[in-house]
């Protein structure tokens, strides 16, 4: 995997007062952390996104933010994390690490309904913890990533500010597992130190009325530390398989949502 230095990351606004001397590279130097370039990336199981992510998949040395945009999301009153996508990725991480690996779900909001975990063969190894507030969540995720006991750590990332995401990014660099944060749609443009940011939104299934196969459009909104590629504004459609809990990429371009959906 190719990592370019921090120069490729979008410049933080200079007026923000906590950015100046404590950029990630400065923190890394101060703490003596050596970002290990070689580590096994977790393939998303989707060709398109994998190709954009330097052909490997999600790096376990980065934090990945997943924004869910479900029903009633616009009002900002309800929030449903993109759990099908998160469970899909957690399952991928477990297959990379080896069977019997554990996953940690931090925050009551991201506890999936058990049948999804069971379908994804994650039920026996899932640990669900209930944290209150972003600080406690960040502490737990930090601990779990540094402890290196989990294949994937999935957290309710609502309300994490730049400093906390920086802390998590530093923890993720220890390589302790795939770090996934679920964020709210309103946080689409919030500054963070995370490696990638994705948006998952439901799309119509142009299928016979009797077929019950939920579909989502997965947008890659932002990525950091990777060489830019032409297909940077990636958007793909995935479909849920109830039996395995896996999301499979739909090859058909006709299912791509229109530009209006992307602008939302």
């Amino acid at each position, binding site marked *: 995997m190719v990592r370019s230095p921090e120069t490729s990351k979008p410049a933080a606004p200079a007026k923000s007062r906590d950015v100046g001397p404590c950029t990630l590279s400065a923190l890394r130097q101060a703490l003596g952390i050596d970002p290990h370039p070689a580590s096994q990336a977790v393939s998303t199981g989707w060709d398109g996104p994998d190709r954009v992510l330097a052909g490997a998949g999600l790096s376990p040395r980065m934090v990945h933010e997943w924004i*869910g945009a*479900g*029903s*009633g999301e616009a*009002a900002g*009153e*309800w929030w*449903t*994390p*993109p*759990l*099908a996508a998160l*469970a899909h990725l957690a399952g991928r991480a477990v297959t990379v690490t080896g069977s019997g*690996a*554990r996953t940690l779900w931090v925050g009551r909001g991201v506890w*999936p*309904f*058990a*049948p*999804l*975990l*069971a*379908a994804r063969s994650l*039920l026996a190894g*899932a*640990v*669900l*913890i*209930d*944290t209150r507030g972003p600080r*406690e969540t960040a*502490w*737990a995720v930090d*601990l*779990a990533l540094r*402890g*290196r*006991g*989990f294949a994937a750590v999935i957290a309710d990332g609502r309300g994490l500010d730049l400093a906390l995401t920086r802390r998590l990014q530093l923890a993720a660099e220890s390589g302790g597992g795939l770090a996934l944060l679920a964020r709210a749609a309103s946080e689409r443009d919030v500054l963070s130190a995370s490696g990638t940011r994705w948006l998952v*939104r*439901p*799309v*119509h*299934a142009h299928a016979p*009325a*009797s*077929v*019950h196969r*939920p*579909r989502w459009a997965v947008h890659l909104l932002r990525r950091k530390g990777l060489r830019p590629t032409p297909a940077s504004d990636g958007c793909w459609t995935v479909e*849920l398989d*109830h*039996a395995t*809990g896996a999301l499979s990429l739909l090859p058909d371009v006709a299912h791509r949502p229109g530009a209006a959906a992307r602008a939302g």
Partner: protein
Amino acid sequence: MWPTDLARRRARASGRVPHHRRGAEPAVLVIERHGGREIVAHACALAAAAGVHPGMSLAHARPLLGPRASLVRSHRPDRDAAALRSLALWALRVSPEVGLDPPAGLLIDVGGTGRLYGSEARVARSVCRAVARFGIAARGAVASTVGCARALSHHGPDPLAVVPPGGERGALAGLPVASLGIDARCAERLDAVGIGRIADLLRLPRAALPARFGPDLLPRLDRALGEAWEWFDPVRPDPPVAAGIAFEGPTTDAESVSEAVRAAVGLLCVRLAQRHRGAREVALTLARADAVPEGVSVRLSSPSRDPTHLWNLLRPRVEGLNLGFGVDGVMLVAVRAAALRDGQVHVAALGGDRDAPDVARALAETLDTLVNRLGPGRVLRAEGVASHLPERSVRLRSVLEDPPRGPAAAVTTHARPSVLLSPPEPAEAVALVPEGPVLTLRWRGRAWGVLTSRGPERIAPEWWREAEARAEREYHALQLEDGSWVWACRELLRGRWFVHGIWA
């Protein structure tokens, strides 16, 4: 039967031998090796019925068993003795005084327990029944003397004998002399003069017995008849592993106290290692001058005796303790402990590879830290429950609790949403015809057009819950106009609609 019953239990617990239907159980043989020969040491009742008896060679015994499945295990007297001790500790629930009578006996002092259980005979019966439930055939006898009860339980005609006080002489009279527990030489001498039963022995002149049959016989007879004392050493559960450090005088220096705790943790871990155990819960007590002791405890998700890990868990707690007017000493007790085998010491991360034991250990340490900061009720595992109701189909259990034995109930994967709303959110559905397809769903403050509807799936509560037996529901998977799918249900009784889950 004790060694064969234990062999069967172990084989079942290891999972290699399935539970058999009645009538298809394998015959169990426990063998010993003498030189190159394999000799049957104990045979279970099934094998005995087929003609196998102890002392036979295994090659001889096998044809006798014929096509019947058999389970052959070598004799492990040390493990059997350990099992007997565990059974004795279990029997402490009946009486505080329980002794071992190796190789296969327990002595339980039931004096006085009759008031609790109804009668002493009833105590003995319930103990025998409970032991039988463990898969161990047991015989029992209640008598006023240890010797009499032991003789009757081994050689008496009934599986459970009760001798009224004073009836020892009569009860023993019909038993063979071997039931007194005499050695082989003495038994030989008695046999030579044709004395087979205790009644014959009682007719002989007392004074002549030691000279003719050895010094051992008369005391045994006297003890069985209640004319001499006999006692046994009761078993006691192992005291918890503890380590303490006392100061020369009270100190209020927090650093000294915390150093002392750290040293005590090291000591505790050494003592745990000696017993091959790991702590599941450690309690720290500070003995304070002129004040009540102050204490904290930490709990662990899996047994550990790693001093660094225990200290990391204890340190934040120690810092918060009130030292009062000074601390005289610190005491650490492993309140709960579990067996922990010695592991090989790893040369960590030499090749950068993540070794499986390392990951397991890292996981346990992370879980312990989470539990001790967040509390055991907030670090959970999910397991399936046998219920069709979605909200009852999952139970969350603290990681500190051991998972229940046996396979967990299967969790259905049949088209269930990824999020279950708790509580279900009320909704209103509009359909053209009653119970027809839903056209519009009013939910979360707006009306959603429904594109697709899949269902219904009817889910009923368990029939034995009478109060809600008629509260059946029909679940529909509805695709809303924005493409998202929700899991809506209608209560059949009242016709109310709820959204119970979302495919998110």
